[in-house]
């Protein structure tokens, strides 16, 4: 067991180091090199964290979907571990996104929270996948918990496009009179320096995500290993 774990640990360590470097560069670029936004000023810089966070969260939920589907199909433990790990890290990144969005919102709109489409969607995602984690923890039988969670993982992901559509329609059909437009995609006449910062940041977040995911995955593997050993020793 220890033999095969060593190269994986090393690779993970390199991944983590790369992530740190990429994020550091991205942050430097975003905070120092890139110019401030024409409309929003310095506070716009949080986008270098905010956008990668939410994109990584979506990636995570996609992995939950894949892991859940594979688990129901093949019933291999590794797919269950993947789904569970991706859900946890996804919730983490989603919570981060909301906090970052809130921090951005305060100076921009003067409020800590607003029910615009994006923030609302992110909050809903948080609710769904927190529910996923709660479901897992409240079912005692491990294999039943895995199946139940897998079903939720699939259904939750299938619902996301529908939730997107409904929330966006709702928000665009009933636009409150005085609103700033925070939803403009950042690549509309944007300084190339900002784009570079964003890209590096995104790469860094991706690397960080996979680093955390592999850590969490290993933890999940170890739990199963402990169970298997206890079982082997049991009368």
């Amino acid at each position: 067991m220890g033999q095969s774990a060593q190269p994986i640990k090393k690779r993970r360590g390199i991944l983590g180091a790369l992530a740190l470097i990429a994020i550091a560069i991205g942050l430097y670029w975003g905070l120092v090199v890139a110019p401030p936004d024409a409309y929003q000023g310095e506070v716009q810089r949080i986008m270098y964290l905010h956008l990668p966070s939410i994109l990584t969260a979506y990636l995570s939920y996609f992995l939950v979907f894949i892991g859940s589907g594979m688990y129901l199909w093949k019933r291999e433990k590794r797919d269950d571990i993947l789904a569970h790990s991706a859900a946890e890290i996804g919730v983490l990144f989603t919570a981060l996104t909301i906090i970052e969005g809130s921090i951005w919102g305060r100076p921009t709109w003067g409020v800590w929270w607003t029910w615009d489409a994006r923030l609302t969607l992110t909050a809903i995602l948080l609710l769904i996948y927190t529910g996923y984690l709660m479901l897992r923890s409240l079912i005692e039988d491990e294999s039943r918990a895995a199946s139940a969670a897998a079903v939720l993982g699939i259904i939750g992901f299938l619902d996301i496009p529908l939730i997107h559509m409904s929330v966006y329609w709702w928000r665009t059909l009933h636009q409150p009179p005085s609103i700033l437009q925070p939803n403009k995609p950042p690549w509309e006449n944007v300084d190339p320096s900002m784009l570079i910062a964003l890209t590096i940041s995104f790469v860094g977040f991706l690397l960080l995500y996979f680093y955390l995911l592999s850590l969490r995955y290993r933890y999940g593997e170890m739990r199963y290993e402990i169970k298997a050993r206890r079982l082997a020793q049991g009368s």
Partner: protein
Amino acid sequence: MTLVKQTALLLWKDLRLELRRRESLMTMFFFGTLLLFVFHFSFDLPPDRVAEMTPALLWLAFLFTGTLGLAQLFNAERENHCLDALLLSPLDRGALFLAKTGFNLVLMLLVEVVVIPLFWILFNLSSWNLLPQIFLVSLLGTVGFCSLGTLMAAITLRARARELLLPLILFPLMIPVILATIRCMENVLRVGEFGEAFAWLRLLLGFDVIFLTVGVLIFDHVIES
């Protein structure tokens, strides 16, 4: 035996049992009506504002009433390990999904048929001519609620804090339905016809079709002994 026949058989069994004991239907009726009263006291609305609030209040009432129905959905199978009896048999699990969804749907529709006119009476609404459209929207929304609700009820069957966990995981997933039905009804009440709310109606239909299909396909994995 085909899927349809098996579904009909199970649905017959549930309706027969419900007709005899009437626990689910009575509690749901009472709860739905009770909520109307509570809303009336909570929201002291002037007559011109009531129409605005109607869809939201109606749907809140149905959501909670429906959740009550979901909590009782598998009651018949809890006695004498009858769920084992069904799983033992050559029953297509998709038929079980459709039957339970259908059963909750029947119960909710019966409640809605009474509660909606009751709402119009209690809140002194005059738009009686719009009831057919209101019923249609309600029907589509209820189908969505029942299909997703049956799935969630089944996966939480053996969970701790089941009654709390079910709404917790169901409601966020229901947001498209909640938004669609309420916005659709609002438009109908305001303009007198569907008009631009047709898009919401299509969303509802899409939701229903997707999750009914997913439910039938995925129910083997949902319900295990």
